[in-house]
């Protein structure tokens, strides 16, 4: 199809009609999710197999459209394929299933039972996403087009109403009206801080200096969070459209999208979206013939967590190491290259087009008093349905984890939910009826963060979780300010000690003192919020710290050396798997007879536990005096 350069809003409307007509015909569409997770599980091979199968079907006069889409949400069950009409969702599709899908489902109209969703709890099978609880309990606004449009096709985006909001803004609204509409919506920044978006835009617009810049922060560095990646991979044009609208409101001729280095597919899709928007006259000079000019460029990060911080990100864009600066003067006044700069997160920008199209009042009708709209979360960890979910603000964490997420697998007990990444905290099970809301999560000692929701079960040691985050923060601290550079290192050392069974009385108090210093003295939010993992775990799981320190025992059986392994004689079949794996020959026994484990030789590496298929290795509290101190080592640090 030749590229059409749109020179006025009427051109856009015409393109929409054309594209919509093409997709509305009665053709059968097979949509294959091609995001990072599904591709990791072989979606590209599935795609090739469909190409071949569809080619063969075409010879028989069957017309089937194959469509590339992105994240449908149920990441762990990929590759995911949706067949329309019929709205049938197939999961874990392999290339060898493809011929059968075409013959049985497309030609024969029969649903393949073996490929549809099975409820992990009830075993009930469901073919349509509209009946799967994982989907029915969500409210998808930002993700509404995921799975329906090809992220690499601007026509697809236009067909579902894309760039409509932009046309409306450029022809019917003044910049002040745009900001007012966003203000009415109550939109707050989705990157973590929750700062009111309209206030940021207004300050930037009012700031002295020229040119003004806008930035999309796609440096999603929180480990365990992948919402922004999924949005950029699934619907990059929504982000670009939001940015153009923002640039118009603020009066900016130049925008930047800063994407993490670890997200190559997101970089490719956003780059293509920018190029396509340019070719269609939706970026560049004289957008839609209205006289508004904007260029957007994409920058890849180079691997630094701190670059998610606004001033560090700007330093990085200027070609420097990503070191933050003190923000006595806000970046909306003095930002990139010393000019007024408005930085918003991917999800924030992606919310803007819908707010303009459907109105701020509509958006404000969703959510809670202080937090409007929806929030996208990446739900992961010890949970049945891992994936990308979007819920209205105000839904409780329990509804998300147990309702949408389907609860905890393997009959384990839910222990805590971690939100906000390394800057957030762990919320214990008894507080999970808290609604998702910027302010309420903050009150619990955590924060919304960018939206990672990590579920932890009884096998997760909360001291080790704190240690993990502090190890992360110590490595990622840029080293500019002493409080963060030295504070995270000291906290990490203490936590390493506790997890190795060498904790001392007073260590927890010392940790809390260091938390206070970081909160008071660190330069940027990476440092001040580094206290949160320790604060929240000591607040809700103090008992675990005490058991590590006093009893040299890890009640979650997670910290190596702080619990023992024993062979459960009744369960042991004498298969020899553990015996073979044991690196110190601590296990002995004859074939087909229960084996024995010599505690005096055991180094507690857990190789036997991992090797056993019969649950015949138990993790127990060590008997007094049985800790082989030489064996106590902390791994992975």
């Amino acid at each position, binding site marked *: 199809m030749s590229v059409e350069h749109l020179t006025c809003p009427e051109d856009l409307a015409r393109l929409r009609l054309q594209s919509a007509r093409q997709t509305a015909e009665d053709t059968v569409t097979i949509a294959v999710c091609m995001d990072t997770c599904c*591709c*990791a599980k072989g979606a590209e091979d599935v795609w090739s197999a469909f190409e071949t199968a569809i080619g063969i079907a075409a010879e028989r006069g069957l017309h089937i459209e194959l469509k590339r889409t992105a994240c449908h949400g149920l990441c762990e069950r*990929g590759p995911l394929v949706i067949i329309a009409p019929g709205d049938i969702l197939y999961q874990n599709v392999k290339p060898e299933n493809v011929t059968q899908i075409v013959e049985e489902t497309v030609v024969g109209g029969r649903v393949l039972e073996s490929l549809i969703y099975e409820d992990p709890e009830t075993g009930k099978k469901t073919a349509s996403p509209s009946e799967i609880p994982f989907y029915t309990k969500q409210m998808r606004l930002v993700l509404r087009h995921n799975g329906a449009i090809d992220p690499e096709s601007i026509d697809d985006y236009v067909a579902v109403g894309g760039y409509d909001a932009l046309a409306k803004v450029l022809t019917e609204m003044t910049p002040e009206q745009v900001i007012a509409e966003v203000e009415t919506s109550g939109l707050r920044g989705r990157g973590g801080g929750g700062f009111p978006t309209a206030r940021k835009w207004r300050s930037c617009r009012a700031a002295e200096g020229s040119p003004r810049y806008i930035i999309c922060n796609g440096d999603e560095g929180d*480990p365990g969070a992948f919402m922004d990646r999924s949005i950029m991979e699934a619907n990059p044009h929504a982000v670009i459209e939001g940015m153009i609208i923002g640039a118009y409101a603020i009066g900016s001729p130049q925008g930047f999208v800063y994407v993490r280095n670890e997200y190559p597919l997101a970089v490719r899709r956003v780059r293509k979206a920018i190029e396509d928007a340019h070719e269609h006259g939706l970026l560049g000079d004289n957008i839609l013939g209205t006289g508004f000019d904007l260029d957007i460029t994409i920058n890849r990060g*180079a*691997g630094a967590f701190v670059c998610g911080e606004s001033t560090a990100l700007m330093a990085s864009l200027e070609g420097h*190491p990503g070191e933050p600066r003190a923000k006595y003067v806000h970046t909306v006044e003095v930002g990139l290259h010393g000019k007024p700069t408005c930085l918003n997160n991917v999800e924030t920008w992606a919310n803007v087009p819908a707010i303009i199209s459907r109105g701020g009042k509509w958006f404000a009708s969703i959510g809670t008093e202080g937090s409007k709209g929806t929030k996208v979360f*990446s739900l992961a960890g010890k949970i049945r349905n891992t*994936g990308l979910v979007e819920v209205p603000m105000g839904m409780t964490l329990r509804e998300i984890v147990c309702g949408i997420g389907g609860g905890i697998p393997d009959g384990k007990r839910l222990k805590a939910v971690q939100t906000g990444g390394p800057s957030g905290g762990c919320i214990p099970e008894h507080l999970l009826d808290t609604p998702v809301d910027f302010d309420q999560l903050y009150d619990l000692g955590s924060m919304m963060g960018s939206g990672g929701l990590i579920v932890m079960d009884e096998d997760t040691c909360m001291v080790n979780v704190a240690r993990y985050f502090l190890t992360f923060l110590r490595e990622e601290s840029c080293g500019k300010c002493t409080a963060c550079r030295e504070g995270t290192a000291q906290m990490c050392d203490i936590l390493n000690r506790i997890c190795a069974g060498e904790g001392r009385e007073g260590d927890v108090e010392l940790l809390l003192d260091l938390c206070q210093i970081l909160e008071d003295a660190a330069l940027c939010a990476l440092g001040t919020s580094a206290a949160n993992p320790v604060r929240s775990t000591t607040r809700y799981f103090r008992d675990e710290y005490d058991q590590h320190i006093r009893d040299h025992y890890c009640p979650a059986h997670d910290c190596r050396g702080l619990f023992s392994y024993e062979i459960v004689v009744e369960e042991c079949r004498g298969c020899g798997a553990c015996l073979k794996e044991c690196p110190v020959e601590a296990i002995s026994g004859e074939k087909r007879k229960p084996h024995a484990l010599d505690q005096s030789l055991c180094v507690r590496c857990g190789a036997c536990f991992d090797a056993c298929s019969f649950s015949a290795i138990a993790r127990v509290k060590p008997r007094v005096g049985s800790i082989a101190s030489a064996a106590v080592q902390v791994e992975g640090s």
Partner: protein
Amino acid sequence: MARASVSIDYEGASEAVAAAYGRDPNFVIPMLQDLQREFGYIPSEAAICMARLLGIPLSQLYAVATFYSSLRLTPCGDHVITLCMGTVCYLKGSSKLAARIQASLNVGPGGTTADGRFTFQPVNCLGACGLAPVLVVDDTYFTEVKPIHVPDIIARYARKDGAARDVR
């Protein structure tokens, strides 16, 4: 893959990269990324050329190259084993995988084996948390990896270039 050798045109490569960004020092990070794509790492010869072309001190390039974890100043092996150390992967045992990989290859994080076959690169998070723990060799993802899978994965690449997916 390019290895240190007199015949490599560092000057020409640096000039081409610098020209692509109008010799603007603001773009030093993408330039270093481009050099790394070309050589597999940032050779000191190229960095010296680049600093001269941009009219900035070499120390400024060095500061950038050592600050960002994806930029390397030493060559990497034929195969790069990237291990996700994100929260979910960690909870599901990536540190055990790291220990196993390091023991079998006798390398530390970021290190390259003596035979130049493998580089082991732990990273913060690949954002594929639904498939944790995730290990990537070159461009091939291995998902829900267990420690017992590690020797098998390494063996495939140690033999010769071969790739296989889904060892589960």
